[in-house]
């Protein structure tokens, strides 16, 4: 699938941190932090292309039963009357999990967090093995909407080793 919009949404929202924790063992599985540089809300190229980020996870990730993800994002000088995220995770053509979360109103010039704790969809051992053997074929699309308009589309691919 192509990127479905430009990245103009970075004038409205920017992501600061993302982490994934195994809720049963409290083990941090993944953490990505943006360096602490001042945020820039103006010089965003509205035509900027989306990028696909490649994530590498330890195989133990596939054994986790309950995980907690934490997303930290900043909202720029403009308030958002409605902010919503839809994310879909696939292995090849198979939908593994989909999220639809409405943040709603977001206060201008703020930092906000969303922590989501959920059960990982149960996968059979054979599928897990295939996922390990097929790096880059587990993928996700994240769509961000402001006032029902798609303003950001990010893609990610995953490998387990």
């Amino acid at each position, binding site marked *: 699938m192509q990127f479905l919009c430009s990245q103009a949404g970075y004038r409205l929202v920017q992501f600061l941190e993302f982490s994934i924790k195994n*809720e*049963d063992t*409290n083990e941090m599985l993944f953490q990505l932090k943006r360096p602490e540089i001042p945020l820039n809300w103006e010089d965003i190229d509205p035509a900027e292309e989306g990028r696909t980020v490649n994530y590498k996870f330890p195989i133990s990730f596939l054994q986790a039963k*309950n995980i907690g993800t934490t997303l930290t994002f900043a*909202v720029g000088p403009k308030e958002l009357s409605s902010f919503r995220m839809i994310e879909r995770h696939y292995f090849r053509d198979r939908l593994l999990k989909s999220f639809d*979360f409405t*943040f*709603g*109103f*977001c*206060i201008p*010039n*703020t*930092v*906000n*967090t*969303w*922590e*989501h*704790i*959920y*059960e990982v969809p149960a996968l059979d051992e054979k599928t897990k093995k295939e996922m390990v053997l097929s790096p880059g074929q587990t993928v996700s699309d994240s769509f961000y909407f402001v006032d029902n308009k798609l303003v950001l589309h990010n893609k990610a691919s995953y490998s387990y080793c």
Partner: protein
Amino acid sequence: MGLLTIIKKLKARERETRILMLGLDNAGKTTILKRINGEDISTISPTLGFNIKTLEHKGYKLNIWDVGGQKSIRTYWRNYFEQTDGLVWVVDSADRPDRLEDCKRELKELLKEERLAGASLLIFANKQDLSTALSFEQIKDLLELDSIQTHHWHIEGCSAVTGKNLLAGMDWIVDDIASRMFSLD
């Protein structure tokens, strides 16, 4: 995962349950939320916007919204009232008298809100571990809780540092929400 035991009670419900945590700045809202979930509470900074915690369990969803309490942010609170099933009002029981007056005034304003009319109200008289803290009975009188006719309410003296009574309070509010749902059926 203390909250897991709580969400299990919500099974009778179909839609998502939404709990809103409010209170003056520095009351301990964010610390309570982290403490309940067994997270590190040593590095919490004032909340500028919101912190949301979503718990999903066997298809049921509990969303807890913790919105910052600084004066400049309070005007935005109304944006988060919609569809609230439970309101958790957090009080710093060791706060200055004038701040406790603010606290009482802000709570009274909230209780007039139509969009919060159906919500169960839990008051956390927090910071009971401090020697200067007023007891939960004193907080109850100070906030004139006995005069509340419009909401089911409950007060719990608690401490986000020791964890005392946090689950008891959450348990009450979830039970109250769930029982209202049953009575609507």
